[in-house]
């Protein structure tokens, strides 16, 4: 066996060791042996590929890539390293999973060096969330947890990492440290709750550090004490809370009710305003309607008067015309009205006057008054005050002295030099004298 063969054999031997280590997940040991194998023979492709796989497994992707790239360069055909490279290409992109992990790990390391351990923990948790097999990140996280005294968390992280790389020296060291601290804690806890040992003669007696009182009275006292404490707690803590919540609830309900009432009031007010507005409109419409109705009546009566007049029924024409108020007649019809009134009233008043005097003479004063009032409405000074004069007599005879006096005074003022004035004064005196 020449020297070259010896070297190759040594390389093969280290490869075998590395392979054995890798099979039992002792990846640190495997990496060490495979590196030695490659120191002996750089062309040992199996060793190089396996080294790449070991690096990949512990999350050292760039180192894995390096080994596989060299491997492919040394042996281009039938080399599985080419497939490994192809498989990991997407994750190795700038925005890929591994590159992001590496960047975050580096940031976390920077934070740890600056003393920002909490930020470092956050970053490392993100890293391990993406790649749980990243041993270096687990180690750093474990170390920081230990430094912070969070030994349970440290132990958990390191235990997970141990499943990837079982014999990593740093990992074992940190795990031991965490375990020791946890043990110490347990011991201290036990000491606190611990028992007391003492010797009585030749016997060793062990009893709890504190002895429980087991007597019936003690139990009763404890129960009563518990009840009292419970009552006090409920009285001072629970009851006020319940009261407060009830008060708050009723206050909230009151506010809500007030809000509802005010909203309703506003609605009612709005509706009332609407009703008022509508009532106003209705009234206006009614007025307009009644006004137009009365206007219509005016023209109806005017027409009726005209018809009766043309038929020679002067009394009926006068009756119709009597109901037409001059003020209601529009300007366009005023001429017609005046013309008609001029022709009708003359004859109509004659008829009325005749009838009224007849009634007066018959002693039917009420009927006479009614007719005279119509005459006076149409023409107050009809017959040079005769209508007024006889109407006053009719009032007087009918017992309506006040109206009689009014008419007599009117006659005196309008016809002061006439016999009617003299007589009127006599009648006034007579009435007043009575």
């Amino acid at each position: 066996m020449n020297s070259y063969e010896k070297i190759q054999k040594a390389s093969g031997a280290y490869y075998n060791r590395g392979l054995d280590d890798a099979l039992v997940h002792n990846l640190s040991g495997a990496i060490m042996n495979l590196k030695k194998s490659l120191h002996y023979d750089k062309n040992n492709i199996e060793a190089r590929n396996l080294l790449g796989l070991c690096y990949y497994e512990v999350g050292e992707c760039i180192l894995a890539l390096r080994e596989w790239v060299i491997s492919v360069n040394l042996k281009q055909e039938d080399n599985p390293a080419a497939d490994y490279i192809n498989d990991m290409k997407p994750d190795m992109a700038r925005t890929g999973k591994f590159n992001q992990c590496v960047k975050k790990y580096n940031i976390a390391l920077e934070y740890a060096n600056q003393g920002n351990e909490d930020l470092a923990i956050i970053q490392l948790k993100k890293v391990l969330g993406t790649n749980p097999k990243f041993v270096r990140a687990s180690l750093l996280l474990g170390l920081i947890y230990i430094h912070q005294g969070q030994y349970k968390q440290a132990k958990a992280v390191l235990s997970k990492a141990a499943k990837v790389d079982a014999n990593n020296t740093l990992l074992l060291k940190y795990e031991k440290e965490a375990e020791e601290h946890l043990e110490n804690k347990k011991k201290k806890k036990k000491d606190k709750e611990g028992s007391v040992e003492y010797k009585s003669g030749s016997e060793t007696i062990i009893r709890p550090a504190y002895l429980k009182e087991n007597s019936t009275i003690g139990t009763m006292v404890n129960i009563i004490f518990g009840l009292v404490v419970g009552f006090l707690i409920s009285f001072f803590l629970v009851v006020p809370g319940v009261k407060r919540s009830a008060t708050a609830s009723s206050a909230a309900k009151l506010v809500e009710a007030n809000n509802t009432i005010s909203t309703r009031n506003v609605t009612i007010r709005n509706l009332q305003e609407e009703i008022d507005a509508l009532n106003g409109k209705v009234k206006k419409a009614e007025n307009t309607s009644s006004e137009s109705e009365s206007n219509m009546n005016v023209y109806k009566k005017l027409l009726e008067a005209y018809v009766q007049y043309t038929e020679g029924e002067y009394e009926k024409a006068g009756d119709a015309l009597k109901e037409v108020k001059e003020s209601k007649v529009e300007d366009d019809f005023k001429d017609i009205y005046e013309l008609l009134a001029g022709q009708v009233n003359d004859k109509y008043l004659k008829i009325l006057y005749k009838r009224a005097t007849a009634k007066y003479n018959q002693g039917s004063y009420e009927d006479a008054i009614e007719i005279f009032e119509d005459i006076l409405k149409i023409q107050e000074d009809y017959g040079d005050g005769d209508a007024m004069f006889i109407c006053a007599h009719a009032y007087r005879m009918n017992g309506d002295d006040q109206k009689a006096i009014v008419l007599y005074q009117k006659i005196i003022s309008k016809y002061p030099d006439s016999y009617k004035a003299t007589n009127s004064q006599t009648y006034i005196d007579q009435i007043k004298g009575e």
Partner: protein
Amino acid sequence: MIDFEEELKKFKPCLEVEDAEDAIYSHDLDDMTDILQEMLKEANKQRR
């Protein structure tokens, strides 16, 4: 008892994708055969 500061010094930043090329080119590939060949060359030179 672990010295945190000392332990932290053991952690080095990871190589990023941008550093992959350098990592490959700067990797020392010499193996035992290369060293032996170098030694033989030197020995031959000395003999001459």
